[in-house]
C-alpha cells in the first residue's frame, strides 16, 4: 500500500533521512522504532507532505506522492495522528472532529454519521462533545487525536508517538485501541519510542538509527533481537564496532 524507496530528507541543514526504504501492506501494523533523532518523525513528515524528500520516492497505492501537498495526501487516504497530539485546544471536541473530516466537508451527513460512530466507540468523547478539547485529559486528547484522524476515512493511519507523555495505564488503553483498529482491518504505521509495546502489537517492524534503517523483520523477531534488546530494552552487551 505504502512504498518508501531510498528517501533522503533534510531537516534544516541536517541530513535526517539517509536512504530510507520501507513498505506497509494493506491490513498490516508496521512499527517504526528508534531513539530520539533517528529520523522517525522526519520520515512521517516526508510521507505526509510536510517535508519533501530531496531524493527517493514515496508511493501510495501505486501513486507517486512526491510534489503533493499535505491536503492532497490526506485526500489520497493517509491520515496522521501527530506527535504531541496537536488537537485544537480552544475548539470543542465536536469541532475538532469536524476539522478531521475537512476533506468530506461537502458531505455533512457523512461527517455526522462518522462522528456519531466515534462517540459510540469512545463514549467519553461523546459525553464531552461540547467541551473544549484543551480541558480533556492526556489519554482523552489522544483518543480525540485518533478519532480526528479517522474522520477523514483514511486507508492508512499513521500514529506518531501516541504514547508520549501518557501515564502507563493510559498507554495500555491507547495500545488497546490500536489493537482494535487493527482488528477492524485498518492499516497502521506506528512510530514509537516504546519499542516493546510497539513491536508486540506489530506485524512487522523497522529499527532506525541515525537516519537509516538498520534492522527490519517480524515484530516478534525484532523483540527478541539482540540489537533491539540492547539498544531499546536495556539488555545485552557490546557490538563488534563498539569493542
Amino acid at each position: 500500500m505504502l512504498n518508501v524507496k531510498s528517501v533522503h530528507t533534510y531537516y534544516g541543514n541536517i541530513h535526517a533521512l539517509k536512504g530510507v526504504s520501507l513498505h506497509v501492506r494493506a491490513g498490516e501494523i508496521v512499527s517504526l522504532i528508534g531513539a530520539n533523532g533517528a529520523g522517525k518523525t522526519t520520515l512521517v513528515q516526508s510521507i505526509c507532505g510536510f517535508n519533501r524528500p530531496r531524493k527517493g520516492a514515496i508511493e501510495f497505492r501505486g501513486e507517486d506522492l512526491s510534489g503533493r501537498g499535505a491536503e492532497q495526501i490526506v485526500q489520497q487516504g493517509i491520515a496522521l495522528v501527530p506527535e504531541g497530539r496537536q488537537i485544537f485546544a480552544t475548539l470543542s471536541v465536536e469541532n475538532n472532529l469536524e476539522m478531521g473530516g475537512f476533506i468530506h466537508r461537502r458531505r455533512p451527513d457523512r461527517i455526522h454519521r462518522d462522528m456519531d460512530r466515534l462517540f459510540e466507540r469512545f463514549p467519553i468523547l461523546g459525553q464531552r462533545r461540547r467541551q473544549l478539547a484543551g480541558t480533556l485529559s492526556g489519554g482523552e486528547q489522544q483518543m480525540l487525536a485518533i478519532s480526528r484522524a479517522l474522520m477523514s476515512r483514511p486507508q492508512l493511519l499513521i500514529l506518531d508517538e501516541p504514547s508520549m507523555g501518557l501515564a502507563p495505564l493510559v498507554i495500555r488503553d491507547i495500545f488497546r485501541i490500536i489493537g482494535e483498529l487493527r482488528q477492524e482491518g485498518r492499516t497502521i504505521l506506528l512510530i514509537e519510542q516504546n519499542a516493546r509495546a510497539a513491536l508486540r502489537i506489530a506485524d512487522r517492524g523497522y529499527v532506525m538509527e541515525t537516519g537509516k534503517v538498520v534492522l527490519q523483520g517480524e515484530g516478534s523477531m525484532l523483540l527478541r533481537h539482540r540489537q533491539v534488546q540492547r539498544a531499546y530494552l536495556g539488555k545485552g552487551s557490546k557490538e563488534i564496532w563498539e569493542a
Partner: protein
Amino acid sequence: MGFDTDTDTDTDTDTDTGEVAGVIQPNLTVNQGENMPIWEPAKECMSRDEVRQLQLERLQATLNRVYRNVSFYRKMFDRIGFVPEDDFADLQDLQRLPFTTSRDLSDSYPYAMFAVPLREVVRVHSSSATTGNPRVVGYTRRDLKTWSTLVARILSAAGVDTEDVIQVTFAYGLMTGGLGIQYGAELIGASVLPTSVGRTERQVRIMQDFRTSVLVSTPSYALLIADRMEQLGIDPKTLSLKYCVCAGEPWTEAMRLEIEQRLFVRATDNYGISEVIGPGVAGECLEQTGMHLAEDHFYAEIIDPVSGRVLEEGEEGELVLTTLTREALPLIRYRTGDVCSILPGSCACGRTGVRRLSRLRGRCDDVVIIKGINIIPARIGDLLERIRGERMLYQVVATREGHSDQLEIWIAVTEELFFDKMREQRTLVDVIRNKVSNFIGITPRVRLVEKSSLQEENGVVKLFVDLRAAPAA
C-alpha cells in the same frame, strides 16, 4: 556449490525451536491452485513489485551493516568511494560494487568476515577447500531459523509433508547439506532418517525397512542406489519411495528421467551453497520447470564470468548471490562459481513473483572460452555419451590458426571404436561434429587419436587443453 553437513544431535536446534516454535513459525501450509503445498505463501507468492521493494529494504540494511561491522567491506567500499546511504538507491546500484570471491572468504579464515561477535554465533560450518583455507560460515540463532524455513520451503515444494519418511544421504559434518535438509524436514514434521553418505547397501536396506518415501541425494548417488537395487534384485516398485530431492551437482534432464523411471519417483532439483547458507537457496516445485529462488533472502545476478558484466534474463553465466538477511556472514555479490541462467516466464505453481534458476550447467572454473563462446568441456562429454550411449575418452583442445581460435575434440580410439570400416568411423565423426555444432554453435574439428596422445594430469585425462598460446605444432 555443493553442500554436505554437520554433526551429532545438536543442542542448538532444541533451544532454537523450543524458544520460538509457534511464535513465528511454522507457518500454515496452504494449498494454492492445484493442491501443491506452499510453505510460506505470503513470502513465496509475493508480486514482483513486493519482492523488489523488500529486496531494496533488506539490501540497504545489509549494506549499512556490513559497512559498519565487516572491515573487509568497509575497506572495499572506502576504496571505491561507495557510501551505502548515498550511493545505493536502487537495486541496480549494487552493480557498482566489486564481487566477493571464494578467495576473499578463504583469506579471511576463520572469522574475519563475520558481522557479529562470536558470542552471537551459534553454529559454524565450513566448506571444503581445494586450494587455500576452508571457507568458514557462521550462523546466528536467527540465521539457523531462516535456514530451516528456507529448506522447509524447498522440501514442501518438492512434495514433502508430515507423512513422509525422508532419507538424507548428504554428509553430516562440517559441511551444510545433511543438517540443512534435516532442519527443513523437521520443521515440516516429516520423519528424518539421517543416514548420511555411503554404505549403499545399508541405504537400500533402510529404504526398504523404514519405508522411506523421500530420498534426498545427489543425482548420481540416486542412480548408484538404483544400480545397487538392480544388483540386489530389489524391485523399486516394492518400495515406498515417492520423491527424490536432488542437489549437489549439475545434472541433466536425461538423468532426471532415468532417476524417475528407475526409482519410480518424481525427481526435483534444488540449489544451495554453503557460503551463503547451505541448501534452501532455490528449489523446484513439482511442476519441474526450474528452481524458485528465495528472493526475499538472496539477491541473484548472472554475470559473464570473464568480463563481470551482468547478463540478461535467459543468458547463461555465473551465479552471483548477495545475502539479504544473513546476520553472521553477510555476503555482497558472492561469486558462486556455478553456471546457470535466470529463466524467463513464470511457473504455474503460483510462485509468480520470484524468479527461477535453470539447472546448473557446471562450474565456472570449468568454463573455457573459444571463439568468444563459453564452453564447459564436461558437457561435451555428456553430449558424446548421448551419441554413443557410453562414456568416451576425450579431450577438448583449443588451438589457434592465424588469428582465429579452433575447437578440436580428440577422441581416444578404443577397441570398440577401432572398427575397420573407415566409413563408420567417418560417420561417427560427422555425427559428433554436427551434434556439437548444434549444441554450442561452433563446428569443431573431431579427431580420433591414440589414447597416449591425450594429455594427462595426475593419471587422469585432462578434459581441456589450451594450445592457443603455444605455436601450433
